[in-house]
């Protein structure tokens, strides 16, 4: 792989850009791999990357039904934060956030990580108490956050109306090291690094069955033929239930649609990410100038990657009070992604009833921010067969044992 650098840009500039090579190869699948990963989204690719980087396992195939990063990796609002209440969540999300800080250098691929700061508005008295509690928990966990007052909110984000009649801004949980990154670049950067390590990324290849023998996985059937494997990692977000069905076990998950939308591009007006969880809306400004807006999930199971229109109305209506200047903005695009939500709103990184099959899913509405940490923890689970310290609490057996990682209250709805 040729390295990307300022020198390379200069060199190609005088060669009419003829020397750039393809970022990753698109090979036909081999007959057998040490590890087959189903799902070439951020989490699947990160799992592959850390399998190679941390454990030297490079005979790996990453199989994708659609195209690389075409699922939720390309359908989120790119927010990165780690201000979670519970210790296991804070640990894995903080790991992810810290890996994002050096990701561009680690991958030699500019993922445009922008630690611009994330603010979660407190608009009710109970939210103030909740976020103060989270700030104290974060201090104990080593995650740098603070609870700030409304005047500081106004300084950090001048377009906020802090005196709204229905939902005045009473304060905020501020994480200065949170921010955003370019979501496609995260998938592309990992794919390029994986391909460089000799891994096969096989796109447009749907898994149609999980072949088993004596309680173990021996391979997968795909639309490009059968592929044998020693270990199988299922990292497919919204379709976790489908794959688990093929493998013959059930999951504590339901799939729902989560929507986001962007406005027409406007001049720079806010350089932080603002989340307003009481009213189910969050907003940031992309480098192109579009206001990127996310809302809540629909209240019913759905695999269509379309959400309900009235949710957009609710989200935008709520945000207009807090950001009066967006009332005349035209909305440009809207899209939905299928997220799998667990009973306690925390993910599973887990062993399964099949000894050599591992599962990573249930990230719900918080998948993008966790990509590197999730990949790091999943790679350790797949390589060693047992979860490491990051993944230990996220086993699926926690539902049977009542050992929940309850973030549904702590994180509000926007997650």
């Amino acid at each position, binding site marked *: 792989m040729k390295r990307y650098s300022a020198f390379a840009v200069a060199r190609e500039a005088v060669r009419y850009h003829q020397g750039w090579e393809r970022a990753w190869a698109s090979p036909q699948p081999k007959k057998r791999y040490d590890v087959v990963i189903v799902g070439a989204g951020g989490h699947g690719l990160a799992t592959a990357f850390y399998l190679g980087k941390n454990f030297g396992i490079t005979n790996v195939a990453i199989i994708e039904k659609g195209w690389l990063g075409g699922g939720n990796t390309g359908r989120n609002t790119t927010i990165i934060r780690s201000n979670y209440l519970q210790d296991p969540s804070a640990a894995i999300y903080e790991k992810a956030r810290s890996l994002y800080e050096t990701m561009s250098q680690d991958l030699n691929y500019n993922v445009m990580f922008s630690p611009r700061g994330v603010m979660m508005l407190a608009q009710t008295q109970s939210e103030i108490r909740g976020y103060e509690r989270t700030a104290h928990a974060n201090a104990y966990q080593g995650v740098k956050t603070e609870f700030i007052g409304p005047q500081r909110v106004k300084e950090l984000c001048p377009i906020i109306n802090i005196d709204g009649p229905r939902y005045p801004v009473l304060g905020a949980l501020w994480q200065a090291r949170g921010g955003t990154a370019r979501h496609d670049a995260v998938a592309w950067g990992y794919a390029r690094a994986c391909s460089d390590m000799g891994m096969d990324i096989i796109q447009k290849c749907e898994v149609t069955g999980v072949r088993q023998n004596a309680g173990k996985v021996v391979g997968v059937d795909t639309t490009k033929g059968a592929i044998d494997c020693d270990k199988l990692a299922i990292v497919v977000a919204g379709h976790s*239930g489908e794959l688990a069905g093929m493998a013959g076990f*059930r*999951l504590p*998950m*339901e*799939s729902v649609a989560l929507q986001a939308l962007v406005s027409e591009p406007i001049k720079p007006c806010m350089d932080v990410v603002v989340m307003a969880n009481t009213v189910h809306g969050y907003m940031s400004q992309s480098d192109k100038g579009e206001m990127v807006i996310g809302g809540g999930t629909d209240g019913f199971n*759905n*695999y269509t990657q379309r959400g309900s229109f*009235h949710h957009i109305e609710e989200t935008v209506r709520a945000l207009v009070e807090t950001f009066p200047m967006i009332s005349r903005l035209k909305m440009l695009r809207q899209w939905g992604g299928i997220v799998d939500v667990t009973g306690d709103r925390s993910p599973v990184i887990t062993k399964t009833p099949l000894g050599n099959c591992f599962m990573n899913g249930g990230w719900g509405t918080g998948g993008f921010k966790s990509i590197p940490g999730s990949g790091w923890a999943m790679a350790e689970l797949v390589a060693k067969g047992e979860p490491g310290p990051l993944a230990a609490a996220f086993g699926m057996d926690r539902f*049977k044992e009542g050992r929940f990682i309850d973030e549904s209250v702590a994180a509000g709805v926007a997650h």
Partner: protein
Amino acid sequence: MLTLDCPYCGVAAEETELHGGGEAHLKRFGPASSDEDFEGYLFMRENPKGVNFERWRHVNGCGKWFHAARCTMTLEVFGTYSAQTTEPPKALLAKIKKKRPQWPGYGAEK
């Protein structure tokens, strides 16, 4: 917008008047049951990509709970029926089977 016919008051209810109640026909296991059964009742869900039976409440209407059969792939609604039953009506199952010959049938995944 999703529209479901409320089998109690007869109104063609829009999504904004309804509240989803999750998977239908769960068999209830109490504290005296085994850990597996209790976990299954509380957390494990079919979550099918296709025909799904679910509970709904006509919350901004007559307030009654009812059942609906719906496709999670196409959002097609096959029909709604009373909450006072432990399984879908036979006529509705036949109707779905006629529309979706590939569908393995109610309870096939359990």
